[in-house]
């Protein structure tokens, strides 16, 4: 017997945070979650699995396009044609979405009730599948506690969308401990909710498959589903299968060994090449962060837009549409230059960042104007943008560090351009 365990599909959820530039592979990016989902369907058919488990968050909570539901039905119908059953529970996102309640799913799909945990048995496969959907989005009770005991002589599977003991970055819904789960004497716990894959327990297996497609820079690495093989009523293999079409990665480029900007950029390009080699023709969305101490620091930070453009040009030339530089950030440090506390304008310029109080003071003077500009940005967008928190001294320091390197560069740049 073979089955697939997937979760957190978030159909039609857009890729967020990618800065657009000329030559960016916009087409490659399009409909990534659908393509990944189609990969899942194709895998189920190719592997001739007996059934598929979908453990919550099929849709994005605030997504209101019924077309997405229709698309989902079509895919389910495809599985039906191949005689593949689907066991499905709703997650917090689905509960927030009316659509999931209104869809009429094909008869090969069993959508577990939200009222109480129920058990579905299949005499042919000798399985008992236990599951419960979310009633509301913010479900804070321990659902696992209400799951029935195992059916003897059957391969028992539990379906639950949960944060288990709490994972950072994810709301703590349907909380339960690992012990709560293993106590049920099931053979396989199919979980969902956390977007990072994790095999939490073996014998019995407790698996969090992660989401099938990363959607922003916090969802990096391979994404996909778990393919489970059962032989003689015992799990014989648990394999991760990649389904993502866009892979997200953060590339840290340590510039300590470099002296010039060009060298640092070359380093980034070759690191990207290495990273692409492991992507199997997928589009790589990469955030490039330059770190380390280098004599090129001042130039890098001072003219970051320019170097971003140059690097994007290099990457485009080298990798074409296989790679999208999501953002290029410069977090380097300069070699010490005496840290002179002088009375001269050079000191004033070079050491433009004074003490915290000084910065706060300067910021305060400009704040109302900045706030007026920022107020025009819709709140939901502002939350996505990773903007510096102007009330946070650390963020402020980092911002001023960039400004401080910008001034001499701007002054000298003008010279060079003449």
């Amino acid at each position: 017997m073979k089955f697939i365990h997937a979760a957190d599909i978030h159909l039609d959820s857009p890729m967020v945070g990618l800065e657009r530039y000329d030559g960016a592979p916009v087409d490659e990016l399009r409909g990534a979650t659908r393509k990944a989902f189609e990969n899942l369907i194709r895998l189920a058919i190719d592997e001739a699995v007996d059934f598929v488990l979908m453990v919550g968050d099929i849709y994005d909570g605030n997504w209101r396009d019924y077309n997405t539901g229709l698309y989902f039905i079509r895919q389910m119908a495809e599985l039906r044609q191949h005689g593949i059953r689907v066991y499905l529970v709703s997650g917090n996102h689905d509960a927030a979405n009316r659509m999931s309640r209104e869809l009429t799913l094909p008869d090969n799909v069993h959508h577990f009730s939200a009222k109480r945990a129920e058990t579905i048995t299949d005499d042919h496969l000798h399985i008992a599948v236990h599951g419960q959907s979310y009633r509301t989005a913010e479900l804070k009770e321990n659902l696992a506690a209400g799951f029935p005991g195992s059916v003897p002589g059957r391969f028992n599977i539990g379906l639950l969308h949960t944060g288990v003991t709490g994972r950072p970055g994810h709301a703590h819904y349907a909380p339960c401990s690992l012990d709560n789960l293993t106590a049920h004497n099931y053979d396989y716990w199919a979980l969902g909710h956390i977007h990072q894959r994790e095999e939490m327990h073996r014998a019995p297996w407790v698996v969090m498959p992660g989401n099938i497609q990363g959607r922003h820079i916090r969802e990096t690495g391979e994404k996909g589903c778990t393919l489970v093989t059962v032989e003689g009523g015992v799990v014989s293999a648990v394999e991760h299968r990649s389904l993502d079409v866009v892979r997200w990665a953060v590339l840290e480029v340590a510039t300590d060994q470099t002296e010039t900007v060009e060298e640092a950029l070359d380093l980034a390009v070759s690191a990207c090449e290495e990273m692409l080699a492991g992507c199997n023709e997928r589009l790589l969305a990469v955030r490039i962060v330059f770190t380390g101490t280098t004599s090129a620091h001042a130039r890098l930070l001072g003219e970051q837009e320019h170097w971003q453009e140059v690097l994007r040009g290099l990457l485009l030339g080298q990798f074409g549409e296989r790679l999208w530089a999501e953002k290029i950030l410069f977090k380097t440090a300069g070699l010490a230059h005496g840290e002179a506390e002088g009375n001269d304008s050079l000191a004033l310029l070079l050491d433009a960042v004074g003490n915290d109080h000084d910065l706060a003071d300067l910021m305060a003077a400009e704040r109302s104007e900045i706030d007026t500009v920022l107020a025009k940005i819709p709140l939901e967008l502002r939350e996505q943008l990773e903007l510096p928190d102007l009330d946070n001294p650390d963020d402020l320091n980092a911002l001023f560090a960039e400004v401080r390197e910008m001034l001499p560069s701007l002054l000298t740049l003008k010279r060079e351009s003449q």
Partner: protein
Amino acid sequence: MRFLDLRLLAYGPFTDHRLDLSGGEQGLHIVYGPNEAGKSASLRAIGSLLYGIGARCPDNFVHAYPDLRVGARLRHSSGEEEVFVRRKGSKNTLLDRDGHSLADHAITKYLAVEDGRLFELLYGINHQTLLEGGLEMKNLKGRIGETLFSAGLGAGVNDLLNRLAEEEKNLAAPRFPEGIAKKVAAYKEHKTEVQSLALASRDWMEADNGCRRLGEELTGLNEAILAKARERSALERKLRNLPRLANLSRLDEELAALGKVVRLPAHYSAESRQKTVYHLEQALAAQQRLATKLDDLEAQCAAIDPPTLLLENGERIQRLHHDLNSQQTAAKDREQLAVRRLQKENDARQALKDLAPTLPFAEAENLRLSRAELAQLRELCVEFEVKHERPQALVEDIATLGRMVAASKAQLAALPAAVDPAPLAEVYKKAARQATLAQALAEAKGRRDSLLEEISGQLAQLGYGICDEAKLAEIASESTPSFESIDRFDNRFRALEQDEKRLADRLAENEAEQERLLTELDSLHRGGHLVSEEELAELRAERDELWLEIKGNWLDGKAPNQTPPALAASYESGVASCDEAGDRLRREAAQVQQAARLQAEKAAADRRRNVLAAEQERLTASRSGLADEWRRLWESMPVAVVSPGEMRGWLGKREKTLAAIHSFVEANRSASAMAETVATLSDELRVMLTGVGEMGIASASFVDLVDRAEVCLERLGRQNEERNRLRETMAARQAEMTDKEERLGREQKELAAWQTIWLQAVRKLPVTAENVSPSQVTAVIDKLDSLFEDLDEVKRNSVRIKAIDKNRHEFAQNVATLAEKVAPDLVEKSDAEAILLLRQRLTQADKEADLLATLKKQIDELRKDKEKNDETIDKARTFLASLCREAGCTDHQGLPAIEQRWLANQRLEEEISRLKSDVLDDGGGLSLAQISTEVAGLDADQLEARIKALDDALKELNRQKDEKARELGATEEQKRRMDGNDRAARAAEQAALIGAEVGRAVHRYLRVKLAGALLRRRIEEHRRRSQSPILVRANAFFKRISLGGFTELDVDFEGDQQILVGVRANGNKVRLEEMSDGTRDQLYLALRLAYLDHELDESNREPMPLVLDDILMNFDDERSRATLQILAELSGKTQVIYFTHHRHLVELTKGVEQVQLHALG
């Protein structure tokens, strides 16, 4: 940090070039390099060394990029020194003196700034910078904060502030394409698009339910329509069957009325019957016509009998009639032939008579020659001329050639005797190569003389007096002091002078001090004598001595030196003196101490004076020794010895003269060599010219000789050429003559042989063989040809006449034979008449025979027609009889009535059957009886009304159906569009992309905004901190650079804005934008320098060398000198390296201390 040297190891045009920058305290280094000397490259080399060689460095035109090296020895302000070398590359570019790579930060501590561009901005000033700085000050209108900041950091601050403000404004502006607002608007637009594209689940449900409901309604309507249609068709059927049933009963009645009817068989045909009767009647009429015609033809046949014998011989008659024409033509030909034969025979006889009068005509054939013989004779005639003419022509040619050879011989003999020009030519060639020698010699001599004159003048100036050539050599070889010696003495003199100056200063100091000490001592002593410790000690010693004397006298009874009372008095006074002295010493202790100190100082000053005096003496000795040495150095020189500087000048001039002397010697030597060559060549030419007989050349010049030799060689050449030409012509003619003589012999032999053949051939002709000419022979041959032509024609004509006669006879015979056989009555007629008559008779007979044959053929055909007609009559009669049998009648006349009744019966039956079939077909499965019952009593009008009502109902139902179908189509289309597409998702993706752009714009906005704010704040802070110290320094500098044109810089107010103004000597204030460009540039420089000066004093940053590039280009000499002076002063604090293209700047540095001069290239 300062440069001790700059090593241009492989950089720009330099290879292993070293610039020593170690001189001076820090040194104002003026590096002079004319164009192309590598000034710019060395300027760049400084930046390259400190901060790395740029990626697109232009200094690789001699050394390739990988080979570029620039090095330097640097000294840190702490005194530490290190050598660095920089290579081009991206990694490990910093090397130590041995070429081992160093970490990049090894050099960092020598640098105040880590960025090369910043270094250039802060510590580099060039002409362009000054212009920009001046312009910016003008634009800033003297706003003090920005002006000072700009002076501190180089021009561009104003521009930068503007740029930042502009970008900030753009980013925040509502309509700037790259601005935040515009991008947010685009984001919102896409968000709205997402909403409009998204499919609400309610919409889908509605569409789904709508489709189902409409489908059901449509089905209901369709069923109702079907029921009504069925009802309507039943009514229509009844309506149709009503008339059909009425017709049926009428037809049944008609059928009954026909009564009994004979049923003719299926194959019975009325048409066949009618045709057969018609054919029978026709055949009977034809039978009669045929019989009559046959009888008539048979009678005509019997009346004709054609002659058989004549017809049988028809062919022969025709042939002979045809031959008759030929016979007549042949008779005419025979007559003409006979006439011609007679003519030709007469011609032949005449010809024979001409050729051989004695020969009888019958024997004429004897004269006939064969074709070959004739051809040979003709050929021989043609050859006759040639064979006789050729030897004759040869004889004439030989005679002519003989005369020409003789003439050539005479010409040769008249030429002068041959002379070999080779030796002369060789010498001439040698001389010609030196043709310009005479000219060069004259020039060399001229140059030598002018040099000598110039040298004499120079030597006289140098103090050598009048010199001859011999003296020149002496001067050239005499040894002089070297420049190095002069430098050495110069240094020693300078050192001595410095020492002397120092000594004098110290002596003066000493003297002043002595004077001060004496004055002070004097003033101390002026208040009375001061008791010294020594005096007190002395008084005590005197007292003690007196006491000892008293004691000796008192205790030991020694006699005192004076009387006891005197001794006592003395002692008392001694004790008193001691006490007083002691008291005073205590009382005047301070004065005493000061006096003692002054005394001690005085003593020390005296000692110093002595030392200084000794030093002075030593210096004087040194000076005189040095002066002696200096004089001795110049002893052998004819010049009055003066200062080393002047002597350097003298020696320089002397060197120049010496060079001129060398040139002179060289010129002299080359002139002599040339003169010698000329003489040798002249002698050789003379000998050779005499050898070839030239006269009057003993006193000719070299040039004349060369010319003569050239003329002579030309002449000899011409003679030899002429001689050779004559010899060649003669030989050629001789050879030709011999050749022709040989050919003559051959030709004569051939002629003899030919004549023999000629005689043999001619003998066959009827002529006398001897001396017959070719034309005679040709005439005989032609005549013979004509004779035999005639004879041959006579023969041919005779043969033809004979043949015609024979033919004629045969024809007559044939005609006679035929006539005898077929028409004996014509035997007596001539053959021509007989044959004509025969042919007439034959034609008549042929006509009769043809007519007979035609009649017989017609009779045969008529007989066949008759037989056929009889057959037809039989067949028709048989057929009609059989029909009568079938119809049951005796005569075929009764048949038509029977046929008509049968036909009527058939038609009625068919119609009845069709009607019945129609009724049943339309009866919906009912029997005929049932249908009849159904319609019995029905009214057609009623039926039609009911059908009309049904039609109306159906129309209404169909309308409703169409409406529902359209509604369903629209709803289905609506549902079909809800196809699970991802248009809304794509719009959401677009929104996300634009959202990220908003982030980028905001980030940029924040940085630009804060950068502007920070810069403004820093400018203000800088102004607060540095305004007064900088302005104080700048004041001084500007006053000096402007040569007092401006006395100070002041701060004025324009509104609440502080602005910088210059103050003229007359107190007038001048705003910056009102100053001339040059003055403003100078003010900018004053501010820059003031700023640097301030920084050097106040900052604990490592001082960096100030690198200047021709900044004084637009300064006049005075201002340049003032500026250089300021730079020299600044070089006390940090190294100043000034690069220039202009030599006059070097002149301007005279009198400026601390200046170190360097030359590039």
